[in-house]
């Protein structure tokens, strides 16, 4: 029932429309920059709103949430990495790059979850929003560490560089290798665009004069749902373009794109419900944070940090499999899961 109501949400329906448009090979194309503009708006709107609410929030719970966001962001990629390495379907560097995506989050999925909760009339805390902002970065750092480890073991095994499919495998030269400018990549992780908009808007929402915020509310509230629909319409097309690559990725890897969010969802639900003590709505949002994979902030970071990894793998998994899975069937599942936890 709740999952059916999910499927009748305009936001989810527009995502499906985007997917369908590609499947029927429509010539519909959104301008390249539209998704970027819409996501800037969405992050700004949700950040302002969250900051405004958080100004009244409990500092202890907020700190606790941040700590658990960090723990999730560090732990989930390690789980993913170990699972991927065990499949023996991808190189350790690919495994590092892919799993970094699963420690991070997808704002699009998070916002769809909010639309879903609003629609079924479930309330939620604002703390998951800080967690959203916090979780973008650590996963990137873990990805770097895993990659450094992987490169080390490759170097131990081989002495001469071997040329692989299309790309030449990196020799770990001193200090100038992709893993070399670690500090630079670390800075990149914490100053990436989404984090700046989200945290910046939260701070502005918290410190602005109330009359100033009052003038902003129509912009960030009234057109929000419409913009979200447009964004998901666009992303539906982008995701569907990746679905085709999925044969290339292989069945086992595709399966990872569905199992990993379920694992992340369960862990997130437990953290949200049992550890942080959030309501059903709040814990569902934490589950969604655990389940979702980044497709905006992490891919360019991985291109720079782990150039040896194949972008087709991580883009297809996060954008073509996990994102549609979460938006269409995942969210109601995580909601039911938390309901069951709360009931049990």
């Amino acid at each position, binding site marked *: 029932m709740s999952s059916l109501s999910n499927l009748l949400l305009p936001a989810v329906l527009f995502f499906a429309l985007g997917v369908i448009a590609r499947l029927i090979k429509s010539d519909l*194309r*959104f301008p*390249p*920059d*539209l*998704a*970027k*503009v819409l996501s800037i708006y969405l992050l700004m709107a949700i950040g302002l709103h969250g900051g405004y609410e958080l100004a009244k929030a409990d500092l202890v719970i907020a700190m606790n949430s941040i700590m658990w966001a960090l723990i999730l962001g560090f732990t989930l990629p390690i789980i993913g990495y170990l699972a991927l390495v065990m499949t023996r379907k991808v190189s350790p560097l690919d495994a590092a790059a892919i799993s970094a995506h699963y420690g991070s989050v997808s704002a699009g999925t998070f916002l769809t979850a909010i639309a879903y909760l609003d629609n079924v009339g479930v309330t939620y805390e604002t703390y998951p929003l800080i967690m959203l902002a916090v979780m973008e970065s650590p996963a990137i750092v873990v990805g770097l560490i895993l990659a450094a480890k992987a490169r080390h073991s490759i170097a131990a095994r081989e002495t001469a*560089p071997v040329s692989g*499919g*299309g*790309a*030449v*495998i*990196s*020799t770990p*030269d001193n200090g*100038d*290798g*992709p893993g070399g400018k670690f500090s630079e990549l670390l800075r990149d992780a914490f100053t990436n665009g989404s984090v700046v908009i989200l945290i910046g808007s939260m701070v502005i929402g918290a410190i602005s004069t109330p009359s100033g915020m009052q003038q902003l509310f129509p912009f960030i509230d009234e057109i929000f749902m419409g913009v979200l629909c447009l964004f998901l319409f*666009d*992303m539906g*097309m*982008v995701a569907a*373009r990746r679905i085709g*690559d999925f044969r290339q990725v292989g069945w086992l890897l595709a399966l990872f794109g569905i199992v990993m969010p379920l694992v992340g969802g369960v862990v997130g639900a437990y953290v949200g419900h049992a550890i942080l003590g959030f309501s059903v709505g709040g814990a569902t949002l934490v589950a969604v944070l655990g389940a979702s994979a980044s*497709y*905006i902030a992490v*891919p*360019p*970071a991985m*291109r*720079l940090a*782990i*150039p*040896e990894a*194949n*972008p*087709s793998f991580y*883009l297809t998994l996060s954008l073509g499999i996990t994102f549609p899975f979460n938006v269409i069937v995942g969210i109601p599942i995580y909601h039911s899961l938390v309901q069951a936890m709360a009931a049990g």
Partner: protein
Amino acid sequence: MVELYPEKLLSIITNDSMQERLECMFKKYGVSGFTIIQASGEGSSGMASEMSGFDGNILVKVIVPESQLQVLLESVERKLRKGYHLTVFVSDVQVITPEKFNKKSR
């Protein structure tokens, strides 16, 4: 009659996340200028989505004297060896104002 002088045009196609690094490289080696164009495409690393503003390609063009080309190519080759995806090609061009390209811009 306007006289023409030979120069080299180095073109690099890559993911737009590489832009800052390429600009650093150009500044380090003191090129007189460079031009950047948004692009999309497909290659060995799959498709660079032209459908969203995320994760697009750039085409970078730098005109340099032959003497400066080698050092740039060596720097590019080092990047290739580290695994970065760069599609690189060089062409012969002719210019009216060779002095413009033979010195650092600022």
